[in-house]
């Protein structure tokens, strides 16, 4: 028989005497001389680096003024780059830069996504550290080595692929090559563009450069997918793919987008492999398979020597525009990655 609930005891807790108000004691932390010297000098170095780095950015930005004074706003719409006639504009290189980076991304994105999934969810646990190391190692391979490889090993095959695509899909402006597709690749009619030195082939080298970066960002996020949710999906009878589709991919969305954007930022600035491969042509055209394209970085590397002071500042402005593009993509990528569900603290 439950009795009446036990009466709560009526003792009221009395606080301390309220005459004096509690005031938090002010703690004055007095750093030792050693600490003050340390903090001071470290701060000084930090400020020095801030000044150096900011002044580089400002220096580049300031160059836009003489450029605009000299060439006017037409600088951004003029596509030709004729230093001898002082007709200079970055419309073509801007389009070319974006084209090369975009095609590189089209090649690298599926490979990165699938490889990241392979490492995080398909590969045997024993192999995983080796694979991760291999991807890191690939990130350290100099760009010029990939440039050489594409130039001498891939290009002869890639031109066939480009020819095939333009033959069957040439009705799409993107894949059109302004030449007679029935001519053999090695014997183009003179005066017509060939399949070599195109944005597509340069993009293969750039894709090799950005693949490790995109893959490692994606893999890192995938590997943080909650094990409990994965096991729950398995326990419900899911296959490996259904686990990935329902748990890993939604969890890793921020990593997929962020990794891709970071890779895009890298692709925009890639220079050396692009210079080696492309045949430079300052034309705005959507035909990525056709010979001849130009990127901002390749323009800088080829045009700096004969540049007059005005043209040098034009090059610097082009570099600044490139910097702004990479900065924008990197910032968006950083925001997206940090917004993801992951972010476990490392506090003990």
């Amino acid at each position, binding site marked *: 028989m439950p009795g009446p609930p036990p009466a709560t005891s009526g003792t009221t807790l009395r606080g301390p005497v309220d005459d004096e108000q509690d005031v938090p004691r002010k703690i004055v932390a007095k*750093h030792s001389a050693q600490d003050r010297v340390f903090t001071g000098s470290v701060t000084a170095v*930090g400020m020095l680096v801030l000044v150096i780095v900011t002044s580089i950015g400002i220096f580049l930005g300031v160059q836009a003024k003489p450029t605009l004074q000299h060439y006017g706003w037409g600088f951004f719409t003029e596509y030709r780059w004729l230093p001898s006639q002082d007709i200079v504009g970055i419309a073509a290189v801007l389009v070319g830069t974006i084209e090369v980076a975009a095609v590189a991304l089209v090649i690298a994105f599926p490979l990165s996504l699938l490889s990241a999934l392979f490492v995080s969810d398909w590969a045997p646990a024993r192999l995983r550290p080796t694979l991760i190391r291999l991807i890191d190692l690939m990130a*350290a391979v100099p760009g010029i080595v990939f440039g050489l490889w594409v130039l001498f090993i891939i290009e002869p095959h890639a031109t066939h692929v480009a020819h095939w695509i333009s033959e069957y899909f040439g009705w799409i402006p993107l894949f059109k090559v302004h030449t007679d597709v029935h001519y053999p690749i090695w014997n183009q009619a003179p005066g017509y563009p060939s399949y070599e030195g195109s944005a597509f082939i340069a993009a293969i080298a750039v894709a090799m450069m950005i693949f490790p970066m995109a893959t490692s960002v994606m893999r890192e996020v995938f590997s943080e997918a909650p094990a409990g949710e994965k096991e729950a999906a398995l326990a419900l009878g899911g296959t490996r793919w259904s686990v990935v589709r329902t748990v890993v991919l939604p969890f890793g969305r921020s990593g997929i987008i962020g990794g891709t954007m970071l890779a895009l930022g890298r692709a925009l*600035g890639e220079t050396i492999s692009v210079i080696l491969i492309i045949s430079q042509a300052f034309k705005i055209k959507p035909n990525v398979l056709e010979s001849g394209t130009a990127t901002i970085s390749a323009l800088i590397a080829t045009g700096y020597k004969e540049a007059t002071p005005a043209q040098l500042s034009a090059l610097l402005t082009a570099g600044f525009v490139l910097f702004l593009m990479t900065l924008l993509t*990197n910032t968006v990528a950083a925001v997206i990655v940090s917004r993801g569900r992951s972010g476990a603290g490392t*506090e003990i």
Partner: protein
Amino acid sequence: MSTLITEELAELPPLAPPVVEDEPEVVRRTRPRTSEDDLTLVGSVVGSLGTSWLLYEEVLPFSGKFGFFVFWYLVFLAFYAGLTAINRPRAVVVDRVVTSLVVAAPSVVALALGSTVVTTVAKGLRALVHWNFFTSDMSGVRPSDAYSTGGAAHAMVGTLIEVSIAVAIAMPLGVITAVYMSEVGGAAAKLVRTVVEAMTALPSIVAGLFIYTVLIRNLHFPTCGFAAALALAVMGLPIMARASDVVLRVVPGGLREASYALGAGKFQTVWKVVLPTARPGLATALILGIARMVGETSPLILTSGASTFMNWNPFRNPMNSLPLYIYSAVSSGEPRYEVRGYGAAVVLLVIVLALFLLARLVARGRTRS
């Protein structure tokens, strides 16, 4: 005792075969795959190979190795999906198709990477086998000369000097800035972090152009190794600062608090707790940063000038470096010079690999101790 139990059990319907005591129990290996799965895979590989050979080579108007490979892969996917669909639910079919894709993608990349390394080494070997490649420079050597004269020693020395100067500038500044960002903190440190992170986006060619404009055009410096080193440092400083910052930030805050609780000051905490804890990670990040500098070509095109002779002085005369040597060799169009370029590329790859192994070694030191 045991016989009694066995007798009792014998009257019950047998649940499991009686355990024979003589044989030790062996853990039965469960295989996620059945032999039927394996046969399905083998069958689709063989079947698709035959079919695609027939269709691709004989019927359809296509040719080429690459095309055949792509065609075969598509036919294989179709066969594999079809064979699986005979007696498996749709979920399994989709899983197998996706698995085939997920396995194929890294294989393609591995093939590409392997082909890069193998072709580079195979092409460069002809120049590398001559010992003078490592001891001579290219002064007085024509690009078409035999491999037994001339070499890339000047480029190796140049890379060594330029990267050393760049590291000597960028590494201390980068690490101290990282210490400032993560250990001192405050609003200003946040600003520094934002700016440094922004500058990691600076393309290397723009860093090169900046140094070229300021140092060579405006201050009338000669094109020299020092200018190249400065360009590399401008490129590397934000990268190193940021990488170090990331490493320092993952040092657990509890360690710092424990250090403060024991009465240590800020400097003592950073010097005796934070940096030693982060040392392996820090070393790895910095070595990888150096590896990136070693392979960087584009700022060097603008700043260092390509020489053909040995030059130990970074402040006077052009100084060659390995990436630049490769670049000029390959753009020369002279087959023998190209081979030398490949030889230099192999040296570059070996340097990067050595730095990478060093980084692994340093990182491993932590897990052992």
